[in-house]
């Protein structure tokens, strides 16, 4: 008698509709016994406990790992935010350069917009302190000085490339501030110039804040 192979019996064990009273199985006690043994194994496997309690140290180690990951994520978040900050700064620089162009146009009276904003009094240099200028300065200059001092102490924590980029951006913003101050001194009643100057200051504060936060997060 040719017996069924183990694989054949294992396949049959998968099926619930196998008739052991027919065919070879009806005649072969050995194959029936093997089939029943396989089914018993499958039942035993299915009855194994679903849960095995992990050692207590698993949770402790997991908690530490997640806390570590969370910490790394927050650094990455700061860095990403910082990266985005650079993009924002780049946009600000474009704005500053655009403003500088506008200021030049204003001085030369070449654009209609510039002409619209131009007042009868011609620009005067160097700028003098006016109430409007003093008010804007009062809001920003002290903050900028403090941030610059803080950044100076943390400068060594930033990469040379970052420092170079930062300084380049600051130079651009400072140039725009100087230009706006000159224009505002010449036209102290011009609210658009006040807003432009305040915007440049705000960009500088923002840039310096990001730089100090970056250096302290590294």
């Amino acid at each position, binding site marked *: 008698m040719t017996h069924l192979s*183990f*694989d054949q019996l*294992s*396949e049959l*064990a*998968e*099926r*619930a509709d196998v008739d052991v009273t027919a065919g070879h199985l009806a005649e072969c006690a050995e194959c029936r016994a093997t089939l029943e*043994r*396989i089914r018993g*194994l*499958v039942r*035993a*496997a*299915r*009855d*194994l*406990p*679903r*849960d*095995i*309690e*992990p*050692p207590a*140290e*698993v*949770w402790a*180690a*997991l*908690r530490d*790992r*997640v806390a570590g*990951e*969370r910490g790394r994520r927050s650094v990455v978040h700061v860095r990403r935010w910082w990266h985005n900050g650079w993009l924002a700064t780049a946009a600000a620089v474009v704005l500053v350069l655009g403003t500088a162009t506008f200021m030049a146009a204003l001085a030369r009276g070449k654009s209609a917009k510039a002409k619209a904003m131009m007042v009868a009094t011609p620009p005067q240099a160097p700028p003098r302190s006016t109430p409007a200028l003093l008010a804007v300065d009062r809001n920003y200059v002290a903050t900028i000085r403090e941030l610059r001092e803080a950044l100076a102490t943390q400068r060594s924590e930033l990469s040379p490339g970052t420092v170079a980029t930062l300084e380049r951006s600051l130079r651009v913003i400072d140039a725009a501030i100087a230009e706006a101050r000159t224009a505002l001194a010449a036209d102290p009643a011009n609210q658009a110039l006040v807003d432009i100057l305040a915007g440049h200051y705000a960009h500088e504060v923002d840039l310096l804040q990001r730089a100090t936060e970056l250096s302290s997060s590294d």
Partner: protein
Amino acid sequence: MTARPQLVSDDRAGELSLARRAAAGDEAAFEQLYRAHAGRVFALCVRMSGSRQRATELTQDVFVHVWERLDKWRGESALSSWIYRVAVNLVLSNARGEQRRQKHEITDADERMTHDDARPTTRADERRITHADVGRRTEEAIDLERAIAALPPGARAVFVLHDVEGYQHDEIARMMGTAEGTCRAQLHRARKLLIEALDR
């Protein structure tokens, strides 16, 4: 043939809320989630890896993975099913990596198919499942756990997924990246090796 393990919880909204809190950094919520599912994940890891120590590491990896992706779980399936699938994929992925690293210990799939005897486990005795691990389970179950741990990795994975966990051959083939016929052959081989080991 076998039934898919039932979900731990039907309270999908509660699970979603728990998952959101855990994803947002609520440690208590994450611990609650861990406590609810760690037993099953650990059992899977022990049986699939054949090593309690490795299972300890894998269970951590599974829950770190879960924590990192909790915000992506939208509640379409039960949280338990989602976590369990993460565990299966990670354990299989780990096994594939281990296979690549330890070619001298684990032969390729074709070669494994020709073996008749259970490959003796290379794990240290203390890493194997012990009586303490299984508490008051019967001697038969203890013997079966030990025999499963001693199976060659490929056959063990298929046996655990099919006969213990209730996955179908096509699902296992997809998860393992092999042909369905290979899965069937591995299952038959695992069953044969187990019966031989248990009847000794």
